[in-house]
């Protein structure tokens, strides 16, 4: 065990090589997410965003004069691993705060561990309402909630598209089904009853039977709650079967991988999705975006959210003048208007953002743009 601690210290130093040669006091902050496993693409977005933010904050003097050292925690998006990682970060690595996790099903059990240990947690990506609804004081969310996202999608379908028949498909997972349910509730509230509400199996590629079924319902709009791995083949098979219904989804498809998964830009043409107002478009974040691009990395998806989450951690700790997670959390609940790379942010009593900024995006020529 002694040896393993040494190695871990070494790994931390390597990971934190961005702060090379600093002899100052250090504050450890965890970045937890799926760094391996099927969702590693999102884990990388979290890591890139957090690393860049840590680098920039350190350059500006760190947190209460201490330099940030990042600790990587891999949960593979499995609840069991998430709990292990959370315990490890809280207990062994002794982190003061955690940016993560990615999957809602990981964030929920992990947040209990952080709460017990008094660690400040802010998730840049878990949108399931339960994450903050349990009222844990140290849990924050730097992104929107599924119910907010569902309202935007539902209202858009009814008010803008004037659609009468909507098929709702989800991937039977915490995120996907939660999003689909939120949209369904909004639709029902506006007097539209869905013509189909069913779940597909994650990891499969053949959805032809489901597509034929959607076709038989004559749906004008297909709403999908899930991630790009399934959304891609689904939209492709819809188009191949001659089904031209509008395809709408949420922030789970915000990645160039969606185009790859669909087999070409022609299949995703016209697909709509809800996502926070372009995270790279804020004037305050222009510098950060530029430094990402300079290093040859396109800050897509959750990268900027992760960057912002790290800034919030720093702001809360600097504001509370303490590296204690609970004190920082109390300060953040009491004070608002944190300046971040994504504009000014305030948090409500549950730890959610006070303003939700979901807007509709459209895929065109293999890229997405605000509609």
């Amino acid at each position, binding site marked *: 065990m002694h040896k393993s601690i040494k190695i871990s210290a070494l790994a931390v130093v390597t990971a934190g090589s961005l702060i090379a040669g600093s002899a100052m006091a250090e504050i450890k902050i965890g970045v937890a997410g799926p760094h391996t496993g099927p969702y590693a693409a999102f884990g990388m977005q979290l890591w890139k965003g957090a690393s860049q933010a840590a680098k920039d904050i350190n350059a500006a003097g760190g947190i209460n004069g201490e330099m940030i050292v990042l600790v990587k925690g891999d949960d593979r998006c499995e*609840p*069991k691993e998430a709990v292990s990682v959370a315990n490890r970060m809280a207990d062994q690595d002794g982190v003061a705060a955690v940016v993560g996790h990615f999957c809602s099903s990981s964030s929920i059990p992990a947040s209990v561990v952080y709460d017990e240990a008094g660690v400040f947690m802010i998730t840049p990506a878990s949108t399931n309402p339960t994450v903050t609804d349990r009222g844990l004081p140290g849990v924050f969310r730097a992104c929107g909630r599924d119910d907010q996202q569902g309202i935007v999608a539902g209202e858009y379908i009814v008010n803008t598209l004037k659609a009468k028949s909507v098929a709702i498909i989800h991937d039977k997972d915490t995120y996907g089904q939660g999003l689909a349910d939120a949209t369904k509730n909004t639709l029902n509230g506006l007097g539209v009853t869905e013509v189909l509400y069913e779940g597909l199996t994650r990891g499969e590629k053949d959805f032809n039977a489901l597509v034929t079924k959607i076709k038989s319902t004559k749906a004008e709009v297909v709403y999908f709650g899930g991630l790009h791995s399934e959304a891609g083949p689904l939209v492709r098979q819809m188009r191949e079967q001659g089904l031209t219904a509008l395809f709408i989804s949420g922030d789970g498809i915000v990645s160039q991988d969606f185009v790859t998964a669909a087999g070409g830009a022609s299949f995703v043409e016209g697909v709509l999705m809800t996502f926070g107002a372009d995270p790279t478009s804020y004037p305050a974040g222009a510098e950060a975006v530029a430094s990402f691009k300079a290093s040859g990395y396109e800050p897509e998806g959750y990268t900027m959210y992760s960057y912002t989450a790290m800034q919030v951690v720093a702001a809360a700790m600097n504001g509370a003048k303490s590296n204690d997670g609970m004190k920082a959390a109390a300060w953040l609940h009491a004070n608002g208007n944190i300046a971040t790379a994504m504009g000014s942010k305030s948090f409500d009593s549950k730890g959610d953002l006070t303003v939700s900024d979901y807007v509709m995006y459209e895929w065109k020529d293999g890229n997405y743009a605000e509609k």
Partner: protein
Amino acid sequence: MNIKHSFLDAFVAAILATIVFGPIMGIVLDGYSFNLDVPRVAIIVGIIFVGRFVFQLTISTQGGRDFFQQFEKGRAGSIEVTDPGIKTVLAKAIPFIMLAAAILPFFIGKYWITILILAYIYILLGLGLNIVVGLAGLLDLGFVAFYAIGAYGLALGSEYLGIGFWIALPMSAILAASFGAILGFPVLRMHGDYLAIVTLGFGEIIRLVLNNWSAFTHGPNGASAPPATLFNLEFKRTAAEGYTPFHEFFNIDYNSTHRYIFIYLLVLIAVAFALRLKHRLVKMPIGRAWEALRENEIACRSLGMNHVTIKLSAFMMGAAIAGVAGVFFAAKDGFVNPASFSFIESALILAIVVLGGLGSTVGVVIAALLVILIPEVMREFSEYRYLVFGLLMVIMMIIRPRGLITIKRDRKFSTKGEGAVVETKQGEGAA
């Protein structure tokens, strides 16, 4: 030493390595085009060439052959028979090991306590499956279903029936055992691998129902489970209505580690109990009957043994232990989700039983500790940990196909010919 032969052999290995590793390692897909990465192919092919060359050279000498031959011995299919009444060193050491395990959590951090709790839960699962696969010879690939039933028994039981940890413990065991009976009854007339696939199907059905039946189980959102209590004392900073927190009752400072130490000790007691149970069972008629049935079903039936009740009892016993393990798992995390009960878990539990040595109790304990601790220790190598884990599984099987510990059997009477070895079909019947 035959250098030319070794060289040729290594050359063939290098060509194969180029074919196998070349495309996947050397041509990295990037959108619809690709990037070349020749150096890493060259490195791995070089390693394989040199490795194979050295290996061939070594085994062409007498000393080298002897060195590799000693691994061959482990492959011989045999059960060692020991004289009755002999207490092994291990048997004498058990009280001390238990004592050490009991005081261990007071010296290590919370992180390691939670890892050990998980490892102990897998020991329980391994012991349960060991009864089904190791003793009764019924290959069960859906064992995780009973684990899930136990875990959801606590979570949903507390939600709908308001029961707590202590009532859920026996209730989940009974529930899991009943499911074992329901599954076991129709499928037990099947043999070997057919049984395996049907149990696999059963395991998947349970998981899918837990995932799909949102109205009852909350589907993928998972359900929260109540923590364990000590005589109604809760291990929380502030207890729920009508409960007193543990730290207030004893007038000590709140420490979240207490809760884990408490669960740790409970699981340890459960493991000790399960070990004792297994130890007694194999000496009882029912345990003997399981093993007899595994070795030769037809002979047993000709002797008038009721194969259905015997198999069913093994199935139910294993399921009940898994149910208990499930309750501990739910109480530890405070949250259950269908994602924790996928087929991979069944495969891991089976791996524990086989790596440990079919039927061997000590083996299961060691293997469970290894299977849980290795990936955790290897967190340092984060990227490669499951690759190394998979490799270790393969290497373990090649070096010790009968598992870490091959089972020893007490002879009924002392006979001549010390250390005689009996041929056995063990494992044959299990597959």
